[in-house]
């Protein structure tokens, strides 16, 4: 406490102000254990103090916001580098408001800049703000208002900007903290949903990420180098090339044919098939049950379908949607080209929320007419299969408590709510909803790319803060059967959400303490199939 540059924790550490953003302190704020939103029930889940960031990180990168570091912004080493950081940021910000550079989101960004009334209605909708004990840093308006004031003063050069819109100190610390703040938001857009005016403060997070990526060349390695760039290089962010992925699927086909007693084979590169199914390739490595389940269901339903071994044709991820419009467009075009090459009638997405949104909604105004192939969610198709009578089901096999997490991209951002519900209502006698659900759901905490990040203490942060509201929702959904004795299932039909569930369950030992497991929706379908040996869902090793 003797060092004035250290965070003064004796004061109210949560009440940071816009005026603090450029302050010469080593840390702007912190979330203490006592701040965290309490969880329901008497079980002690044992949150711990923050794991300190490694010195190698703090020395190299500007870790000056809080206890976590996500965006690796090199710490400036001289006055010149400090100025360069600010000037590059301003250059990027100017481009955000230029139609040639940002036709993609200019309308939404400008209207959000000009019309927000700063009424703070959005704050209570934010699960991070609530979970952190209302730490000001997580208030949706905090980040967007800093951005807005910089815009009004330095980009729009509004007369009397300081008087009209409020002032903000712009220095390298402001820029570095704003960049990091853009990664303190799941971009789930629940805040935007509640805005009486229609402003979108979550979009501001994504636009800031774009400045860093598209102008300054700074993005998180998980999303960029090991994400979209790796996908464009070898075909998948998992690192699997076409040969590896085909080999893996062969193993999956063999293993699960034997295990389920249902002989199936996943088709590859079938020209003229009706359906090109694109999985999130992470499923193949982490959740092969999911991939096998799709193959079993599609084969049992007699569909004409195929996977593609073309570049990115077997991995539906599009990490660009989290941080970079150019990468978004490139990845979407690769997916469309893979479908075009095979001459399929439609693309169907496996259980991956952001991939659904990326290629169906966002790329709808990116893909040129020659590559426009219809894109469809797997859920209406699965509902059609389940209700078609082509497959016999025994719902008693799913007679355990089941709840369902709604991936934001599928529900709030695409309006796909009912098909998956029709399925669980038919096949899961003990299904219960989370509250709220559907378009008003809460993010799992892994949204906007966080689910694939586990550097230093990011996983800890995802569990303690971003995933806390979802954790509360899960516990409440199973309020009548808490504890380890009753096995309970969370259906999370999205790869990123599953990654977050996996880490939540491991971090808080929820398998042991609450009898919780998780997987997708197709696993429940196959588990109830009469033609498959009982026990497709594995309660013990679904990690």
């Amino acid at each position: 406490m003797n060092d004035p540059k250290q965070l003064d924790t004796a004061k109210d550490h949560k009440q940071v102000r816009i005026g603090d953003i450029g302050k010469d302190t080593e840390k702007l704020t912190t979330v203490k254990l006592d701040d965290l939103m309490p969880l329901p029930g008497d079980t002690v889940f044992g949150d711990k103090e923050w794991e300190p960031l490694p010195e190698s990180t703090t020395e190299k990168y500007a870790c000056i916001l809080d206890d976590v570091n996500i965006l690796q912004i090199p710490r400036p080493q001289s006055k010149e580098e400090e100025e360069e950081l600010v000037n590059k940021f301003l250059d990027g910000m100017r481009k955000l408001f230029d139609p040639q550079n940002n036709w993609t989101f200019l309308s939404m960004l400008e209207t959000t800049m000009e019309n927000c009334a700063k009424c703070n209605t959005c704050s209570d909708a934010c699960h991070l703000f609530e979970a952190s004990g209302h730490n000001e840093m997580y208030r949706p308006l905090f980040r967007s208002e800093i951005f807005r004031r910089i815009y009004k003063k330095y980009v729009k050069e509004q007369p009397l900007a300081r008087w009209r819109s409020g002032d903000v100190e712009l220095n390298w610390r402001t820029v570095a903290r704003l960049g990091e703040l853009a990664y303190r938001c799941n971009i789930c857009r629940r805040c935007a949903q509640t805005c009486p005016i229609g402003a979108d403060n979550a979009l501001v997070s994504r636009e800031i990420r774009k400045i860093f990526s598209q102008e300054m060349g700074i993005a998180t390695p998980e999303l960029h180098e090991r994400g979209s760039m790796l996908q464009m290089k070898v075909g998948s962010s998992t690192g699997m090339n076409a040969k590896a992925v085909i080999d893996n699927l062969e193993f999956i086909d063999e293993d699960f044919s034997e295990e389920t007693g249902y002989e199936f084979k996943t088709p590859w590169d079938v020209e003229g098939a009706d359906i090109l199914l694109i999985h999130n390739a992470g499923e193949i490595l982490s959740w092969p049950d999911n991939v096998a389940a799709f193959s079993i269901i599609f084969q049992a339903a007699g569909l004409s379908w195929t996977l593609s071994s073309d570049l990115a044709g077997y991995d539906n991820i599009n990490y660009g949607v989290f941080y970079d419009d150019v990468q978004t467009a490139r990845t979407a075009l690769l997916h469309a080209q893979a479908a075009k090459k095979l001459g399929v009638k439609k693309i169907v997405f496996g259980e991956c929320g952001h991939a659904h949104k990326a290629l169906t909604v966002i790329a709808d105004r990116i893909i040129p007419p020659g590559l426009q192939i219809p894109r469809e969610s797997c859920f209406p198709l699965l509902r059609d299969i389940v209700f078609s009578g082509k497959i016999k089901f025994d719902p008693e096999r799913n007679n355990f408590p089941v709840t369902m997490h709604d991936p934001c991209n599928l529900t709030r951002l695409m309006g796909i709510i009912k098909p998956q519900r029709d399925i669980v209502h038919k096949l899961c006698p003990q299904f219960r909803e989370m509250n709220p659900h559907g378009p008003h759901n809460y993010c799992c905490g892994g949204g906007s790319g966080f689910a694939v990040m586990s550097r230093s203490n990011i996983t800890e942060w995802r569990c303690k803060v971003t995933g806390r509201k979802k954790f509360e929702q899960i516990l409440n959904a199973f309020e009548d059967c808490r504890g380890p004795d009753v096995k309970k299932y969370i259906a999370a039909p999205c790869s990123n959400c599953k990654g977050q569930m996996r880490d939540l369950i491991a971090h808080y030992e929820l398998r042991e303490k609450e009898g919780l497991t998780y997987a997708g929706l197709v696993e429940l379908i196959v588990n109830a199939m009469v033609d498959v040996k009982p026990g497709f869902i594995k309660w013990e090793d679904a990690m």
Partner: protein
Amino acid sequence: MSQFAYLLTYLGLAVFILAALKRIVAYKRNPMHLRWELYPVPHEGGGKASYGGGYLEDLEWWNKPRETSRIRELSVMIPEMLFLKAAYEHNRPLWMASFPFHFGLYLTFGLVALLVIGAVAELLGAPTDSGLVALIVSVSTILGPIAFGMSLVGAFGLLRRRLRDPALRNYSATEHYFNLALFIAAMGVAMLTWATVDPSFEMARGFIAGLITFNLKGVDSSLFLLQVVLAVLTLAYIPFTHMSHFFMKYFLYHDIRWGDKPNVNAPEINEQLGEVLGYEPTWSASHVAIPGKKTWADIATFNPAAEPEENEKTE
């Protein structure tokens, strides 16, 4: 002084209309944006809007006729605009002040419309004790103080919240307080004018008749003229502030939040797509600023991670 008030009114109305149009035209001139919708989308058909669903729930949705309803959209939009439903649901303490403020303003617009109708009727020779004029007078007499009163109560309530609630205070700039003070002054003077000088709004109808006929006759009340000046200045000022949300909200809702029109049989979208893909971005990061690649189409079809020969094949 009266002439000044008349001229200022012409000027104020012109500024308001032109500035509001400028905002709208600027928005409409922006290039096509990507889809960024948020559900629930109320125009969705088949009962889907009721639970927040949309057409993407349908198998092979592109082969089915889209069921959309402008009436369902308006059935959400109008209560939202009139009663601030979102604030009521998500921020009740704010709504307690914001609703009377906004509704009072809407009633004030209604009052002005009535006064214009009354003035025109009188100009057309309707006797002041005729049914129409009498009705307008009696309704205006009731509507006016309610409108001014609601706005005043709301404006004071909003000011109190901005001053006392740290969550609002920390994000409020001088302009927020100025705006509310301006409304309090305008509505306060309007209330005072009604109470002391023009209880039946006869003077107001006369002033409007003068505006319509360009007969800038004198008005024998400084308080009335002050009311006119404040009202006109407030109106002209709105489009230059975030308060332009009162007309821009339509676009934020209709065009962005609910803009889920798919690119299926939509040549107008493809035409605009052709245009924007020809734009020339200047982003500087190395994976975007590719030598020789100028347009969005060039850049988006270039794979920065591929071996050089792979990109050559695609060119």
